[in-house]
């Protein structure tokens, strides 16, 4: 069988299809991974709302304030306990109850400390009021017009400097609070 001469119209259609691949392939990849990209972006691209000490900041339907950041030293060794007490005066509990809250202590080197599950014994001796306050999970039962006071304890090494408390409410991403 001999190959028939390829008409110019056919050749143009062929090359147009190949050129269209350059657009269609990235579009297919984007459409299929859109959900994963959105999820990654909501988790990693975050904008901080920096709050100076003593200031009140509106976030996720509540007025937030850091009421105390106490430094306790725990024996033995070079372990420091940081007790962070903060409160939220709730205007609109909807965003607060939509998802979990995350409280992390950050330092200037980018290290992140998660709070301890229960306040250690030293905290109960030094600041008994803080040891009784609930953790940020109390926001799930927040009521409009009431102020929820919370406290979290962190165990950090001695040399950590420039500490900041980061509070993230899942419903209010990508913004998060950064108490300096």
């Amino acid at each position: 069988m001999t190959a028939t001469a390829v008409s110019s119209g056919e050749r143009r259609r062929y090359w147009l299809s190949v050129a269209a691949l350059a657009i269609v392939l990235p579009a297919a990849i984007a459409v299929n991974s859109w959900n994963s990209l959105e999820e990654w972006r909501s988790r990693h691209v975050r904008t901080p709302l920096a709050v100076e000490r003593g200031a009140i900041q509106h976030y996720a339907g509540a007025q937030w304030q850091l009421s105390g950041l106490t430094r306790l030293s725990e024996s033995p060794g070079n372990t420091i306990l940081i007790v962070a007490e903060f409160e939220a005066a709730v205007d609109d509990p909807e965003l607060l109850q939509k998802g979990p809250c995350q409280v992390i202590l950050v330092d200037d080197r980018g290290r992140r400390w998660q709070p301890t599950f229960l306040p250690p014994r030293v905290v109960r001796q030094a600041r008994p009021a803080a040891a009784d306050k609930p953790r940020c999970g109390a926001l799930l039962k927040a009521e409009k017009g009431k102020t929820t006071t919370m406290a979290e304890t962190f165990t950090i090494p001695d040399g950590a400097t420039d500490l900041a408390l980061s509070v993230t409410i899942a419903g209010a991403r990508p913004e998060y609070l950064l108490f300096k």
Partner: protein
Amino acid sequence: MFRGFVAVAFGAAVLYGLQRTTPGYGEITSPIPVAGKPGQRVDATAFTIGIAKVHLVRAVTTKNVGRAGTFTTSGVWVLVEGAAEAKSESLTLMSAEWLGPNGIRYALSQRFSTVSGMLPAQRLEPGLPKPVLMAFEIPESQVSGGTLLVARSAWTPLEEQARIEMTGIKPDDIRPAAVLARGQGAVPWILSVE
């Protein structure tokens, strides 16, 4: 026509080769190893671990740690004392395995769940090294030539795994018994080997 046949056969051979050499899902998502030796600091991106001492005993007795009693085994107990530290984020190292020379992986024994200081229960904070204790039950034939595999999780794909070759451990080092008790100071356990 012969050329067409050859082209098809060649294509089939290439595809067969590709099929045989494709790595499986298990290999593609296998943990990323970070090699090390006992007594040395093994640095992964998220954590650091060092192994200080390894004890081989036939029976372990626990004292004032929740469930007291004597734990025997049909093989040998391997008790590993070390220290670990998180680097940038709080984490818990949930997975530790003894890879025997026969390729079998023996996971952490769950019989000592009430002893404080066991690796899967220690929350490691950045900048704070903590002592950790691991307990494995292995057959006596797997004692020499084993490797310790420590990772944050056993199932997360591409997780970093510290691979510490346990050289210098011989079946002659097996002692008859050890006592594991609650410690008071920085180390939450006291291990005394007969």
